């Protein structure tokens, strides 16, 4: 076990780097140019997967929150916090690259289409999740409140998506290189590959963020012991 632990911080970034390069290469060169939108459509490959991984990250927060309430051990709380934060980063990616793509193609910065609006709704939910964490002082209370919000948020994701999709109509027709509906096979393989890239990225960010959460708890403990030592 120890060998892997020491190798991980070196090997993982290398794998990630290779995947990212392969993904970028796929997005820019392998995938054919979309007939209507031209090359700007290539934003899609690093836009849509971020949304999918963000949904997954909030799912992980929901599960970790449930486990915290059930098992009451802080590690689940740290994982829930890390996953919510990384999920928020991916949401931000979707919310910025979306308009950058919409502007040249549809002439407007923001379109209230279903997937983008859902991501915005989730961004609001999990931004306030993090605010609640910051505005509660007692660590146990913070963990409990965040766990309840993590579960409520996770339950909300499907309903938000369903209601916004009905409210707005479906995702615009995105990719038609060579006639026929749906995704061009070449585009599909690059798209799926980019999902893997983002999943690895998610794993790396979590691998960095979780120890920080643990360290923060450790330091809070040490500070209290120090303060108590000084007060006595």
């Amino acid at each position, binding site marked *: 076990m120890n060998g892997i632990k020491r190798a991980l911080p070196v090997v993982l970034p290398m794998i990630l780097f290779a995947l990212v390069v392969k993904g970028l290469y796929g997005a820019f060169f392998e995938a054919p140019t979309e007939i209507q939108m031209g090359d700007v459509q290539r934003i899609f490959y690093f836009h849509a997967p971020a949304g999918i991984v963000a949904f997954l990250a909030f799912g992980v927060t929901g599960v970790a929150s449930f486990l915290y309430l059930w098992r009451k051990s802080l590690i689940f709380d740290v994982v829930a916090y890390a996953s919510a934060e990384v999920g928020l980063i991916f949401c931000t990616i979707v919310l910025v690259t979306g308009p950058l793509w919409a502007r040249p193609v549809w002439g407007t910065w923001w379109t209230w289409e279903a997937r983008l609006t859902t991501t915005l709704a989730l961004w609001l939910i999990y931004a306030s999740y993090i605010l609640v964490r910051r505005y509660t002082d007692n660590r146990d209370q913070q963990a409990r409140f965040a766990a309840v919000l993590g579960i409520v948020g996770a339950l909300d994701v499907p309903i938000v998506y369903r209601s916004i999709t009905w409210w707005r109509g479906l995702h615009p027709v995105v990719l038609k290189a060579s006639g026929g509906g749906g995704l061009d096979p070449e585009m599909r393989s690059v798209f799926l590959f980019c999902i893997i890239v983002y999943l690895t990225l998610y794993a790396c960010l979590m691998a960095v963020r979780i120890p920080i959460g643990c360290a923060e708890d450790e330091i809070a403990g040490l500070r209290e*012991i120090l303060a*108590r030592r000084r007060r006595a």
Partner: protein
Amino acid sequence: MAAEAAIEVRNLRRSFGPLPAVDGVDLVVRPGQFITIFGPNGAGKTTLLRLLCGLLKPTQGEIRLMGLSPLKNGREVKRRIGFIAHSPFLYGGLSARENLIFYARLYSLPGAAERASERLREVGLMTRADDPVRTFSRGMQQRLTIARALLHDPEVVFLDEPYTGLDQQASRMLRSLLDAIRGRGRTVLMVTHNLEEGLELSSRVAIMSRGRIVEDRPASDLTRVQLETLYAAKVEAWTS
């Protein structure tokens, strides 16, 4: 039932983060005893009290109230304990009678109205029964708090710093009410700084420091001065 200990605690621990507030407490209180626990701030007295009445969950250890566990059969235990703290748990907007009727219904006691009036008479608040509690003085609120806590004839009564903020007259009234409780053979556990009041009322005295009970003696062994020196010694040991 009476042979059983009213309060039985085995190796109780509770920590907030790394800091142990209650660090291994063992305590047995027989029915009818009136025990007072003294201790400086941060000694864990209030945490111990909250653990006993099920407001807080212990990280380790066993609690038995009248043979029942506050965690497993919480509702049954809560039906038989009373809690008097310095905050009254009363609704300022409601009148004294309405507050008592509300709690009587919450404890699903039969004949809520009669019971409320009877308790109000006991604590001498009949004249102000229908005035909103907001208009009550601190002493009157404390008397109403006692009426609320004894509404369901609890077998065990917990007191958390009941004397804070009371003037002379209110303290005397509180003392006579606590005497009445003791007279009825109830088990009482009081937590306070007030050495004088504590010694006078209790049949047993304990001192708590840094989450542990460091002294536990029948009150008859100690005079006021001895208690003060003992307390100073124990607390000094903690601060040096």
